């Protein structure tokens, strides 16, 4: 019986052993069913993993039904439509720098644009980001001429 003991086994045999004990084929390690080569060091490492983690831990997920249609991507696509912005003060022919970023300096879009090129920009941002910063700078004098924080 493996439970409660520490044994020196390769990930392959550990996983297979656990699989037989628990769920007869429904659980397995990544690609562990053939051709595994594990150094002695790894065997030692595996042996030292707390016994709780040697159990077929997939139960944590397997006990749960995920909602239909949930895509698991952790990202969202967001389109910024500049018709929603007050761009009346921008001058035709002038170059502006458009920067879309988050508070931590991650830059999603960076471009030199003219007034008539400001239409839509689509970015892909982590769900955990709550605010997008939209900044437009006048190249000629370096002034920030448009700023908007968008709550996602």
């Amino acid at each position: 019986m493996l439970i409660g003991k520490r044994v020196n086994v390769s990930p392959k045999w550990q996983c297979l052993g656990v699989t037989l004990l628990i769920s007869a084929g429904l659980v397995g390690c990544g690609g562990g069913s053939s051709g595994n080569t594990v150094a002695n060091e790894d065997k030692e490492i595996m042996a030292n993993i707390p016994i709780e983690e040697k159990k077929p831990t997939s139960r944590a997920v397997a006990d749960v039904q995920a909602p239909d249609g949930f895509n698991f991507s952790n990202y969202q696509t967001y389109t910024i439509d500049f018709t929603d912005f007050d761009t009346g003060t921008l001058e035709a022919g002038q170059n502006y720098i458009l920067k879309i970023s988050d508070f931590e300096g991650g830059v999603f879009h960076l471009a030199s644009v003219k007034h008539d090129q400001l239409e839509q920009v689509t970015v892909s941002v982590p769900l955990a980001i709550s605010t997008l910063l939209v900044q437009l700078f006048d190249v000629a004098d370096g002034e920030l001429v448009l700023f908007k924080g968008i709550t996602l």
Partner: protein
Amino acid sequence: MRVITGFTLKRSYLVFSMMLASTSAMGEIASFRFVDKVSKDGIGVINLLTPDDASKTSNGALLEAFRNDNNGELAFAVDISEPSSGSETLRSHGVALESVRLLLTFPTEVVEFTVFSSATHSFLQKSGAQNAVLTPTLIGNSDTTRVSPNPASEMTGSSWDSVFRVAVDRPLTEVVGAELHIDFFDVDKQAGDPEEYYDFAGRDEIVALLSADDANYLDTLAPGRDEAPLVLDASGASLTTWTYLPSSSGYFIASYEDLFPLKGDYDFNDLVVAYQVALGSGSNDGVSKIRGSGYLIARGAAYDHDWYLRIGLPAWASGSGTTRFYESNSERLVAGFPASVTVRGDVNLLLAEHIADHFSDGESTYVNTFEAQTVQEGPRFEFSLDLDAPVPAEEVSAAPFDPFIYVHETGYEVHLADQAPVLAHSRNTLDGATTFRDTANFPFAMIVPDDFAPPLAAVDIGLAYPTFLDYVQSMGDVEQDWYLKGQSHRVKEIPFKQW
């Protein structure tokens, strides 16, 4: 021989005669580097009379020959040698120029020239300043494949990059001293890109004097420019606009379970890949370039995988490109790379092939998945595509695109949930294994931000990240930052620098 302009005929004849004398003794002028460099503090005082090769001589006559060859300018190259950091990579890195001053000592006077030009600019905020300004830039890469038509040129085999030119409106034959003072622009590194890209960071930069042929060659080659952020001309107009996915310095992390269609141990570390993509366009005319790069981060499997990135394009899209897959911690390409890519509608990019052969930890096929393992730097890959005609951005498939693995031992492809198999040689369609969710609706592949640390081998992601299931069961409404809340004893921290 180029015609000298800007002088009276009599003066031109005199200069022309002296130049011939100086060049006839040395043959055709050949580009050479100086012993002085721009130091790591971003300041360089380059003595133009001191070549790096001590066997060579530089003097006023030689400088005059170079000036005449370049139509009244002195053309200089900088070998930009910046460490890979943030959006700077071996393929593209840059610095910005605060000032360039050429101090020429003649027998009776010292003359200063401060007007210089470079082909590229960016909009940069100086450290401590409130506003950004249009600033000249120098961009390069780490290739050492420059070739000069002149066998005596030191450019051949070098990594000389961008060119800047200093206008000099008087003959230099009588010069007895010449110093080039270069100050790099001290950007606000906290501002993210583009400042982060154009910083200078701790390495000496070589400076060289160029013949017109070599200067024109480097202008045309434009090393690294395609991948640099916010490259502007002198008016501030964009040369190329890039949209970064997910961001200029961020990566999508794709994590896989490879026992598909069997449920695995759900540690989501059988293969872990970081990748980013940039869509390039000209003057608001759609996507004309697509490039990307990434790293293999962890591998907790014995099976062998290929990793693909499929990007959806309209059926009429066409173009060509290249993929490169490098050995771990090396500039050496894996056999079979670079590989050519032909674009005809959707493109399946094979970016890492037979990964088991190229990503291991000694004898172990498990890499960066055990707590006590020293973190190994994984192989990297990159690709670039040029489209024959611009594609409207809305017709390019949405990020994170379709990153998938092919498992050699099982013959199955493994995609994100709700994607479909695409490879003709896989078993998925034959076996009816075309849905990439298990019976409980969980996927076999997932995309997470690059803060994610893969669970240790055999540790279920639900245990490694206690709020993961709350996130799932709420359809993503709560615990959206679940991937930041890993239990330290159950995940493998792999610092960005060690990808």
